[in-house]
């Protein structure tokens, strides 16, 4: 064999640090962009990425992956999958693409920041491939979503959502900007790749891929599992940073950035992923509950990977475990109730069979969240539709940008964690969101939530119509009940039977 093996020359390709002479090290790697925390160039050179891939391997493997994903799509285009899909599943697709596709592309710019400002040569090379990966994920998900634009105006939001002031888009931007787009190379490695990609994207992409396969959506299933194989590589950019940070006395900083990113990811997933896994995905197609996925991918696996790299569980671990039981149920009621303010149709997911499943997965659901759905169901059955829509605004957390809510019922625990900072009153959903703010107030203090903007008169007229206009939502794309309230049929039949 006249060819060298990858590892014969790989180390040379990542021996590229040099000592700058014509500019200062801090000019070449500005601390705010590199996140070097005073650690000099040579100390980063021990960086060793566990997932090694060379350029020729990359273009070859990626060509094959794309060939696979695009050919599944092409083969199934005439299968009427979309036409025959449960409306709840269509909602899964519409919400996923709108929240994710452009943000994936956006992540390529953060990978590019690591490729430029990372002080570890191995990190710069891996991030060059990561930059390419995220271009892939942005482009392929836009292309796959685009297939549906002529059938459903809501799929326009796969491209449009991130340009609007729709509240979920604001929440997604705030969170993604905070964990990658507006971060330094080191912070991106810790927050995007280590905290978000080794934990949450596993759950979104492998969890949803399992549900998609069950639902017969092979196109989506093969798409997102193909994406996850890229994540499995570039998610490993962050891990090797941690021993270097610890060795240079920066363990507390590493821990803090990861703790912030994990919490912020959790809150966004509680509104975007929790409802689609436990309410939108047709009952027969649910592989596991959101809570089970969270326990498998975050509680068990992420905790293990934290300990392995020499860090600790986040200080708020008990609160996270507690919230996994209930937070997304409240978020689901919120998105259903304010359904005209989202770009997908909310699937209530509360037929008697679905409620039985929820009670089994979340013991006590009927006594708590179920009581809210009892009232909603009764209003629907009685035709009091006006009472199924909101007349007020929720209180929104100044960190996660999501409505502050908790478990209803006798043990009502809704709370607002306030903070007065520079004469402004901020509201937080939790001690943890407040803690995130306090880590670096100047990062967040000048931002206004959607409700802040409403109260400041930026939304005109100050009614639902004005709010929808501000959010960029018009009839034909605004959300509705995904099943046209068919989930209330059983209750209606019961009512008729009793009356009869």
């Amino acid at each position: 064999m006249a060819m060298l093996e990858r590892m014969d020359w790989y180390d040379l390709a990542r021996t590229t640090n040099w000592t700058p002479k014509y500019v200062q090290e801090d000019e070449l790697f500005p601390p705010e962009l590199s996140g070097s925390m005073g650690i000099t160039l040579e100390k980063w050179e021990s960086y060793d990425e566990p997932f090694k891939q060379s350029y020729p391997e990359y273009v070859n493997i990626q060509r094959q992956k794309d060939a696979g994903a695009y050919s599944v799509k092409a083969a199934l285009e005439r299968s009427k999958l979309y036409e025959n899909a449960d409306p709840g599943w269509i909602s899964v697709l519409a919400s996923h693409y709108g929240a994710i596709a452009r943000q994936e592309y956006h992540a390529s710019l953060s990978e590019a920041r690591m490729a430029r400002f990372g002080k570890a040569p191995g990190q710069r090379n891996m991030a060059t491939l990561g930059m390419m990966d995220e271009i892939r994920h942005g482009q392929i998900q836009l292309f796959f979503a685009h297939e549906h634009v002529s059938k459903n105006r809501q799929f326009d939001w796969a491209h449009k959502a991130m340009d609007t002031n729709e509240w979920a888009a604001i929440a997604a931007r705030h969170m993604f900007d905070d964990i990658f787009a507006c971060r330094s190379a080191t912070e991106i490695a810790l927050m995007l790749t280590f905290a978000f990609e080794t934990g949450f994207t596993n759950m979104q992409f492998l969890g949803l891929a399992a549900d998609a396969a069950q639902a017969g959506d092979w196109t989506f299933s093969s798409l997102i599992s193909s994406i996850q194989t890229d994540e499995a590589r570039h998610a490993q950019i962050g891990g090797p940073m941690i021993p270097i940070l610890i060795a240079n006395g920066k363990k507390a900083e590493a821990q803090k950035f990861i703790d912030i990113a994990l919490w912020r990811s959790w809150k966004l997933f509680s509104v975007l992923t929790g409802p689609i896994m436990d309410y939108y995905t047709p009952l027969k197609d649910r592989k596991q509950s959101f809570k089970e996925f969270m326990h498998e991918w975050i509680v068990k696996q992420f905790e293990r990977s934290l300990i392995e790299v020499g860090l600790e569980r986040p200080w708020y671990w008990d609160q996270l475990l507690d919230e996994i039981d209930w937070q997304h149920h409240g978020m689901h009621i919120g998105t259903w109730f304010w359904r005209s303010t989202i770009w997908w149709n909310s699937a209530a997911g509360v037929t008697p069979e679905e409620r039985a499943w929820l009670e089994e997965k979340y013991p006590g659901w009927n006594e708590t969240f179920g009581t809210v759905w009892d009232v909603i169901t009764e209003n629907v059955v009685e035709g009091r539709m006006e009472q199924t829509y909101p007349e007020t605004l929720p209180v929104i957390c100044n960190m996660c940008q999501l409505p502050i809510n908790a478990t209803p019922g006798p043990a009502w625990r809704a709370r607002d964690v306030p903070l007065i900072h520079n004469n402004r009153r901020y509201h937080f959903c939790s001690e943890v969101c407040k803690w995130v703010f306090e880590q670096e107030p100047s990062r967040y203090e000048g931002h206004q939530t959607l409700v802040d903007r409403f109260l400041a008169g930026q939304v005109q007229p100050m009614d639902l119509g004005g709010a929808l206009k501000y959010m960029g939502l018009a009839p034909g794309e605004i959300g509705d009940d995904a099943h046209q309230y068919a989930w209330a049929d059983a209750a209606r039949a019961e009512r008729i039977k009793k009356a009869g």
Partner: protein
Amino acid sequence: MDNTEVLKPLKTWSHLSARRRKPSEYEVVSTNLHIRANGEPFELDPNVFLSQWYKKNCDASPLKHPDWNSFRDPDGLIYRTYNMMQDGGETYVRGLFDQFNEREHDKGLSPYWAGTLARLYTPSRYLFHTLQMCSAYLAQMAPASTISLCASFQGADSFRWLSHTAYRTKELSLAIEGKGFGVDERHYWENDIAWQGFRELMERTLTAYDWAECFVALNLVAKPAIEETVLRKLGEAASHNGDTLFGLVADAELADGVRHRRWASALVKLALDVPDNANVIKEWIAKWQPLADHAIDAFCTALPDVPDAAEKAKRSTLSFQHSLFDQ
């Protein structure tokens, strides 16, 4: 609501649907992807450091255009087609490596030429890495996704060139002893007079943080100078010294370079919609070209067997720059 119009599904994204024609796959997946809601770089405090960085180095750049989003890559490359193209390119280059290794090409090189390779070729992985880093900067700062994508692919191509060099460095180190292959590259890059011009040019280009100045310094000045010298002129020297492989690999890399010049030319053409931009670009070229000329001179002085190498490399760079304003 007073808005009675109910939106109907469109044939494509709403931002593309005003036009009559069907968008290409390139346009569907490449246009208007940067996230700039309400004109702010981030959905955070508007004064956060990186937000100010973008407002200064992107929004307030002296190079202005009302619609950078209208930029289109003349090659229309997307991720999917990039990998098809470069997997083919790598199959070709690796085929060259395989065949030349089979016939023990490196053992036939003269000690003199081997020394030249150790001094003037294998240290280029540092130079190519600066192109990789600088392209990644341009990608994250450019005002339109269609520009960023070209810069990203250019960054990946630079990593490709670096990878070829690293591969060849290892091969040469196995075939030829005593020339310091795989060991002395950093020393040459940091100390040899032949490299100091390019090192200075790239250290300074890497710190040209205005996005458009970075584009001009990198794509209109530094890259043409590097391609004409470190690839083309060194390739000519190689062919005079029995090193056929070098020229074939350099040609494969130069094909990437030609593509980079195509998108750079298209971007300049778009920029020239605004009359003031011609001067902005010309002034930046005038500012950066002396560093590039100095780099070409320093490198070519060390280059054997290519008469007038520096003059010809400078002339080629200049003729590319002139072509930009004659489109």
